[in-house]
């Protein structure tokens, strides 16, 4: 039985797909985190985000997060799907879904996965504003 689903795609992410993958008859709880593109950062209006990645390494790092979550927490399955390319306000850059017998572990693993993804996975976003653009996190 495959316990991890890892995806990096320029297609639209699908919440139901992630749910269907992690859902299991032995599981009483499923925690899901859905990232969404916000309309502002530090009071500046965002028009779109452009996500790029170092694809083979990003996939390896996402897989590491999924595998580590399975080791660290009493969970059953985990899906981590990330989008690349241009995303508009309200679009979904990332979905993480975790199933487990009991809910506490699912919540913990879900937070662990998104926190770690934001630190280690080689994906970058450029924020586009009405009058300019900026690479997020890159400047001192």
């Amino acid at each position: 039985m495959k316990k991890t689903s890892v995806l990096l795609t320029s297609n639209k992410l699908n919440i139901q797909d992630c749910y269907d993958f992690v859902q299991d008859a032995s599981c009483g709880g499923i925690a899901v985190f859905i990232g969404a593109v916000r309309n502002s950062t530090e009071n500046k209006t965002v028009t779109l985000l452009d996500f790029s990645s170092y694809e083979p390494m990003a996939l390896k790092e996402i897989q590491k997060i999924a595998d580590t979550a399975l080791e660290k927490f009493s969970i059953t399955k985990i899906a981590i799907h990330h989008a690349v390319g241009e995303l508009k306000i309200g679009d979904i850059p990332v979905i993480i879904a975790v199933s487990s017998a009991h809910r506490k572990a699912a919540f913990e693993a879900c937070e662990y996965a998104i926190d770690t993804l934001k630190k280690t996975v080689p994906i970058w976003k450029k924020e586009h504003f009405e009058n300019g653009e900026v690479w997020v996190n890159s400047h001192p």
Partner: protein
Amino acid sequence: MEIQVLFFGITADLVGKNSIILLVEKKTTIKQLKYDLTKEYSSLKNINDFAIAVNEDYAEDNLMLKKGDIVAIIPPVSGG
């Protein structure tokens, strides 16, 4: 010896390239490579520190490069 260096995110913009072939001495460490790159491309000083991956894995400063390595310049990530 030759290695390939890939630039991502802001570093590709700063350097103006996605990829270069670089000639380095044998036994060059990651630390030395960072120093050399920043000397060659002084615009790299304008960003927060960057990490280095060798063959798709994060590399420590003391790792020594081998011929044919694919090195990636990883500026602060911002996925999610």
